[in-house]
């Protein structure tokens, strides 16, 4: 428990540090009174407008004070004001959350569902044709950035084969399941394939290692069936790198989502962020970054916890502390 609290504390520190860093970095150089507000509102803004915004967000005080007010706003779900949309950030951020969440979950879950059996079987039948073909494809896919896969797949499936429409209006599963499917299948695949390839390579390497361990040989020497050796002795002992990487890869997944949302015209947080950055939309950038950082940090914390669930050694070491 103490260990968990320690990790939690460290992650909270990182969260504050990074979000504060983003705030400072977005506002640094905008030193003169009213500057941040002017940046936000654009050149045509009147002095009253500027003053109003400046006061509302305490843009004249020091960064720590600004951070404090922004943070306080965050916790009351007031994410600030966006001049590009002339709206409160909260209002237009809401519908953006789900599409990105869909993408991320489909990609991660899909990648794991594909990767685990493939990797396990590859490791079990090491050097077989299946292993070699699997290794070839995972290697090739690891090397395809989203930026390459997106045009290739959309050229093939949207333009050549015309299996998917370019744009569908109904994107939520409760509106239209097929519309949801058509909208998210291809983008999810673009994100999923390289991710699955990474997972396959990681898990295969660990499995190969584990399968050479004494306790696996001992399990065989007890007469345990190969299937049971594989799935209940070897797999659990090989999951650590994979788990760690579900957390680590999340950052990369978000990066991929930025590209994919842009490419497939999905109105998610990624495209919002890109537009926000390119138009110096202070509050949008801060809010979306904060959400992403919080997600990354939380997932890593959960990964840390899951080690303890899997491994009694970690559980006990932590119970001691």
């Amino acid at each position, binding site marked *: 428990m103490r260990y968990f609290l320690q990790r939690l504390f460290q992650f909270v520190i990182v969260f504050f540090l990074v979000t504060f860093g983003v705030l400072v970095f977005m506002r640094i150089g905008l030193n003169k009174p009213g500057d941040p507000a002017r940046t936000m509102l654009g050149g045509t803004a009147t002095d009253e407008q500027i003053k109003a915004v400046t006061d509302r967000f305490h843009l004249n005080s020091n960064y720590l004070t600004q951070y404090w007010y922004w943070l306080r706003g965050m916790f009351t779900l007031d994410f600030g004001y966006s001049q590009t949309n002339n709206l409160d950030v909260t209002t237009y951020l809401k519908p953006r959350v789900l599409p990105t969440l869909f993408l991320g979950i489909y990609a991660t879950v899909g990648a794991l569902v594909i990767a685990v059996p493939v990797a396990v079987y590859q490791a079990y039948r090491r050097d077989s044709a299946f292993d070699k073909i699997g290794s070839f494809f995972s290697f090739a896919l690891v090397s395809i950035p989203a930026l390459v896969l997106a045009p290739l797949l959309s*050229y093939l499936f949207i333009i050549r084969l015309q299996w998917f429409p370019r744009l569908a209006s109904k994107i939520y599963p409760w509106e239209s399941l097929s519309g949801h499917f058509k909208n998210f299948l291809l983008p999810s695949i673009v994100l999923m394939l390289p991710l699955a390839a990474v997972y396959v390579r990681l898990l295969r390497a660990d499995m190969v290692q584990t399968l050479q361990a004494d306790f696996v040989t001992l399990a065989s020497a007890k007469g345990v069936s190969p299937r049971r050796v594989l799935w209940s002795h070897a797999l659990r002992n090989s999951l650590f790198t994979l788990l760690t990487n579900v957390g680590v890869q999340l950052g990369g997944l978000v990066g991929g989502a930025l590209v994919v949302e842009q490419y497939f015209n999905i109105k998610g947080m990624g495209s919002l962020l890109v537009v926000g950055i390119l138009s*110096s939309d202070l509050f949008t950038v801060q809010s979306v970054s904060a959400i992403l950082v919080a997600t990354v940090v939380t997932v890593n914390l959960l990964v840390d916890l899951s080690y303890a669930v899997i491994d009694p050694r970690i559980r006990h070491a932590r119970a001691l502390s």
Partner: protein
Amino acid sequence: MTLTIESPPVADPASAPDTPARTQRRRPRIGMWFGITWLGGLVFCIVFASVLPFIRLYDTKIRVGGKAGRYNLGPGWTAWLGTDSSSHDVFARCIYGARVTLTVGVLSTVIGLVVGGLLGIASGYFQGWTDRVGSIITDSLLALPPLLLALLLVYRMDDLKDVYSWLGWLDRQWEITLTLGILAIAPFARIARAQTIALRDREFVLAARSLGAKSGRVIAREILPNLIPAMLTVAVTGLGILVAAEGALAFLGLGVERPLTWGKMISDGQRDLARAWWATIFPCLFLFLTVISFNLIGDQLARRFDIREAAI
């Protein structure tokens, strides 16, 4: 980008026969030679772009019937890979784009390698508060999705250099190089730290200290030589990732404006994908082949130095 590294192999020739070691090399080295050939060819074209007869100058427009038009040529003899929306030769543009991409990639890798490597070695060797500060830096760098961090950095650097005159030397290419370099620090630092910790407890390091060697010498003579193979391997694989990241930045609109890089070409051609697939697909291929080449070489190096590669 994460690599997990095993401790260096302990090979005792006398005990070898008792433990049937992994036999046979698995994949032939064709892959690595492919990678070297592709990268070598690319570098050759980049260096001699202006004198090679089959590469047009960056600004040459290809006219059909005396007119320059949008996508007026598909792939063929006149323009190997066709022409783009402004009637430029796609092949020539890919080569010129590669110059920027590869320069940015190599320089940012060097930045990441040096800064991250030193940070990691310091954290791993001295531990204590050095390690704590180091790990907060790396954790923070890793908490922000890398592409988001890159977008922020590049975009804000543009603004900042207008405000602070001492940043005036920053052009877009330098901005991107610095940014990607900063992104590369955390992964390099992590690996260097893990390796250093593993090496620090090895007995030959203890032996060096018992001979009266100072910390600096121990790091330089005992730790660094054992660290370099792993770091180089990571650097090569990392180059592939940074090249892809540069592409993504360009795609999102924060690339070098002139010459255009692959990401921007993909982004530009995307709207007309149905009409002129070549303007998008060929830059895609260049990007893919370059990334995979780095990966292939990195993979071979990892095998060579017995570094178990984990994620890329």
